[in-house]
């Protein structure tokens, strides 16, 4: 008990003695495991390479400078592809995620069974990385932009639907009740009671995911799913380091712009 009777009145401590000891024990075990793991990693590391690492990094660095500016002419198209993959993928994801979210939210789901299916869709979409989706889709629909778009879309459904259904569950129920009390149908209750309340969440989630997808789609080319990653992969393989640095620069600028746009849009909505 945290309350302890002493000779000069009652005392209070945050935790009972037994619980406090258990917490200390937990810390002890944690530190022991970390130390052991550190040792294991250390044994399997070839320290010669690590010692050499700064020199190697400096070497690649110097080879990257200066970026090959003229290469930009060949990059406009892949950048455009990347933007399209991200944007289309997000739009597809939102179109599918909205009904899934309404089916998954406790207060709008038509049936617990439907809810279970919706939650399963969300989990399975989220558990697979977009690179893995890309790998699979390149095999199914062939390499290119289409595979990338679908990969981004599939990966984003779970993310969007999860945030959306949490937004739906957090609405103020009395507003819906008030609409219900007027004799409105279920569809009308949705339209007047729920949609206005979750609209900001929807827009915010959409823009946020679009921002993430820009970044994800820049690497999808590594597995052949289109976009600027394709060029990146090619340049690394051919040891064209000045091209690599140019591509990295372009990616950086794209991401900064997308981040700026999404911040502005979110600011305008909320």
């Amino acid at each position, binding site marked *: 008990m945290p309350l302890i009777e002493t000779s000069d009145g009652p005392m209070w401590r945050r935790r009972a003695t037994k619980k406090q000891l258990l917490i200390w024990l937990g810390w002890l075990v944690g530190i022991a495991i970390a130390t052991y793991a550190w040792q294991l990693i250390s044994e399997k590391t070839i320290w010669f390479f690590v010692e050499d690492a700064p020199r190697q990094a400096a070497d690649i660095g110097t080879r990257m400078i200066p970026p090959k500016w003229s290469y930009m002419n060949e990059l406009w198209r892949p950048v455009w592809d990347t933007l399209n993959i991200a944007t289309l993928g997000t739009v597809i994801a939102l179109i599918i995620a909205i009904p899934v979210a309404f089916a998954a939210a406790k207060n709008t789901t038509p049936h617990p069974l439907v809810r279970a299916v919706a939650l399963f869709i969300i989990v399975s979409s989220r558990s697979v990385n977009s690179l893995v989706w890309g790998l699979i889709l390149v095999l199914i629909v062939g390499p290119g932009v289409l595979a990338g778009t679908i990969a981004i879309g599939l990966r984003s459904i779970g993310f969007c639907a999860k945030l959306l259904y949490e937004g739906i569950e957090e609405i*103020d129920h*009395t*507003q819906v*009740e*008030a*609409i*219900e*009390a*007027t*004799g*409105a*149908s279920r*569809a*009308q209750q949705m*339209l*007047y*009671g729920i949609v*206005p*309340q979750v*609209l*900001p969440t929807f827009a915010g989630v959409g823009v946020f995911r679009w921002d993430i997808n820009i970044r994800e789609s820049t690497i999808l080319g590594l597995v052949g799913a289109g976009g600027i990653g394709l060029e990146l992969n090619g340049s690394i393989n051919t040891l064209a380091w000045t091209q690599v640095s140019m591509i990295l620069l372009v990616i950086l600028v794209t991401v900064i712009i997308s981040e700026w746009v999404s911040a502005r849009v979110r600011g305008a909505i909320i």
Partner: protein
Amino acid sequence: MLRLEGLSKRYKTGDQALTDINLVVPNGQVMALIGPSGAGKSTLIRCVNRLVEPTKGKVFLGDLELTKLGSGALRRARRKMGMIFQEYALVERLTVMENVLSGRLGYVGFWTSWTRKFPKKDIQEAYRLLDRVGLMHMADKRADQLSGGQRQRVGICRALIQNPDLLLVDEPTASLDPKTSRQIMRLINELCAERGLAAIINIHDVLLAQMYSQRVVGLELGNVVYDGPPDGLTPEVLTRIYGEEDWEATIEKVEDEDEDEIGEEIDAISSPTKPEQKTIVASGES
């Protein structure tokens, strides 16, 4: 006319909220429902329009038995019951006009409500009501920009545009300051008188209940323990409803202010042009 016969409600948690309630509210009567928190006041009015399903008993609105209606018929029946809420329950991100027009949702189809193309008659009625409560200039404001008293007046418009036979009013003044509370109660009273509406008003302010109702029903632990005129609320009766307390002060004060209110209402009725100014002037005197 509203009739409750043997109405009981037991929640899944096992709480008995209402036990065998029998009540008749005739047309045009404003009935105050008082009682301590948890006495079942909110449950009672929600059982009438079945936002809460009663476990036993019958509810009649006129000759229609509400308790046996299917979902479609229930929706049509709800159009005849306007409801006013404690925290206003306006849809915060919609405009005042959209909130008022949402009272007509039961009468229009899905596409009409989607496109907001309500019939001309409804829109004119909405403007008329907003003008009546002095919020004409607020029609295009978003509901979350309004003050508490203004929001509640929008809530009243939303209930009235349904053209109801009955008003269910759940703690209309609980979130309002004393002066605004009186304005709102007076407004509800006037509107009920204008339209000959029956109303059940849940209220835990005994004073307001006495000032603005023709009949008071006291609930305690889901049972009716008082049913009579407002001036019948003696210390003994209040003790029966709320428990032991010194009630003398409460009751004396009520009688004083009751007379003031009557004077004010006569003033108010004699200057019917500008409703908002009227209410402000009237309450300024109190």
